[in-house]
């Protein structure tokens, strides 16, 4: 497939790269995302304190020179926890998105290329699935299957797959009418070859944009599941989980136990969305 992608005129690719680097939203978004990726990869070496070490004597301390973001109810340093808190989320959400993209691409290629009864049936099923918010479908499945990171990845991946399949399907519908597909059919290429070698490289841009948007929603879903206790599990310093543990103390005035985690999630979400928006702009020009 690489050689097919390379066959694309290189000027087109340079245009896209140039457009990306001129796009304010892409650059801002990418900076935010890369910041959290660096924290996830190297955070363990950057943190001032061990994020899991408890220090009950200094529990619930407000932000100070020693603990910039304060300490939580077990005396753990919140700055350190926020820095490494991106790690599990940035493993689970992207893996779920990759799974969703793989499932959605294959499914979308098949129903878009073959049309007919399968397309009608699968499209109805996709519509039925879309009737429910992903978080609730995921919750139902996780309660049935048991909570673990693998379950969360599979459940979110499978629940986002149909959404991507819809995008892929509509892209395939317009591609399959083009001359190069007719030529491939005349050469008696088999359907698998036409779908994956001829059509797929041409619909990569919409797939890329759709997956980057889905990544934002995967972060949404994983963080939300962690918040309600069905995603990442203690002792992970995950942001959603930390907020769930600490939010009941808000009225007591311990705002620092939730504020920084909330801002961290917000910045990552904004980053992913700006990146997706930049990709969308650059690839659609």
């Amino acid at each position, binding site marked *: 497939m690489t050689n097919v992608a390379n066959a694309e005129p290189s000027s087109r690719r340079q245009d896209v790269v140039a457009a990306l680097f001129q796009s304010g939203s892409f650059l801002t978004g990418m900076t935010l995302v890369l910041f959290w990726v660096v924290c996830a990869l190297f955070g363990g070496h950057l943190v001032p304190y061990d994020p899991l070490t408890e220090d009950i004597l200094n529990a619930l301390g407000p932000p100070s020179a020693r603990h910039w973001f304060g300490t939580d109810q077990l005396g753990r340093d919140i700055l350190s926890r926020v820095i490494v808190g991106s790690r599990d989320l940035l493993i689970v959400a992207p893996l779920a998105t990759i799974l969703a993209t793989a499932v959605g691409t294959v499914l979308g290629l098949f129903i878009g290329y073959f049309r007919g009864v399968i397309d009608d049936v699968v499209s109805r099923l996709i519509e039925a699935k879309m009737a429910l918010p992903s978080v609730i479908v995921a919750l139902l499945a996780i309660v*049935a299957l048991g909570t673990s990171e693998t379950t969360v990845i599979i459940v979110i991946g499978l629940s986002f797959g149909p959404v991507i399949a819809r995008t892929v399907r509509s892209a395939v519908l317009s591609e399959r009418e083009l001359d190069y597909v007719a030529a491939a059919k005349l050469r008696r290429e088999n359907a698998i070859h036409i779908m994956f070698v001829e059509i797929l490289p041409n619909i990569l841009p919409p797939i890329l944009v759709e997956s980057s948007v889905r990544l934002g929603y995967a972060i949404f879903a994983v963080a939300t599941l962690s918040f*309600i206790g069905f995603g990442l599990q203690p002792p992970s310093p995950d942001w959603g989980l930390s907020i769930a543990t600490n939010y009941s103390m*808000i009225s007591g005035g311990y705002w620092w136990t939730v504020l920084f985690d909330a801002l961290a999630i917000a910045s990552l979400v904004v980053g992913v969305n700006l990146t997706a928006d930049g990709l969308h702009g650059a690839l659609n020009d």
Partner: protein
Amino acid sequence: MNRFLARRLAYSFVTLFVLSLLVFFLGQILPGNVARAILGPFADQQAVDALNHQLGVDRPLFVQYGTWIWHFVQGDMGQSYIYRTPIADFVVPALSHSLKLAAVAFLVVVPLGIFGGVVAALNVNRPTDRIISLAGLSAAAMPEFVTGILGILVLGVWLGWLPISAAWPDGAGALTQLYHLILPAIPLVLVLFGYIARMARAGMIEALDSDYTRTAVLKGLRWRQVIWRHVLRNALLPTITVVATQTGYLIGGLLVVETLFRYQGIGSLIFNAARAKDFPMLQACVLIIGIAYAVATLLADVFYSLLNPRIRMEESQ
């Protein structure tokens, strides 16, 4: 138009059928013996068998499914495993609570979203447009508990303007209830704003670009009149459908918001049922949500076809 609506109705039933299958069979995965789980490890085997028989879980799957649906249609949602009382007793008051919260959120977000979309469209590709679009996009992907927490901190704790619990005192009047529901509604408003604004914007841009708008301008109507009489009417049609399709997302948000604000609605019912592995309750609630979504979508279709003569014409041909 009738054929259009009949087809839509058929779709809704197919959707609900698939959903009920999904919900039912996910319930079957839950490992273990239901009665044993309820009665505990020391219960007599005969008592376990008797309860399993009473609950009907020893019958073939398709019989169980048929019975479940048949009872559900008649308003009998079964018994909660945990409380051993009819599920409907919980669902009905919870639904009315959730509807109140949802109504507040919708009443705020629909005009706000349309306004945002219209402003963006009138300033298309200028900074105002970009800011509204990007803010809407980011807010839509922001988990409700994040915006909820930030709202509680800023408006509830620091400024002290709004109560941080949605539970109002007993016998509170409508205004007090509303006062308690503003803060919980904010995260829902933020999640929904982006979609509605985007649809309103797209509709506006299309309408502004159309021949009838050009005609209206060329025949000398004032700009304000063109916008109100010609552009808005046509532009807002697609937005109506979008508002209805957002019901599903709204209910997903209710799950989190009701937990965060300790509000006794369908979302917190789902949360508690999930925590307690009370599967009959969980299944009933999820199916109810599916029905609510189907009804909302159908109403939107009816409304849309009534407002849009083109749908009537096309379908009757």
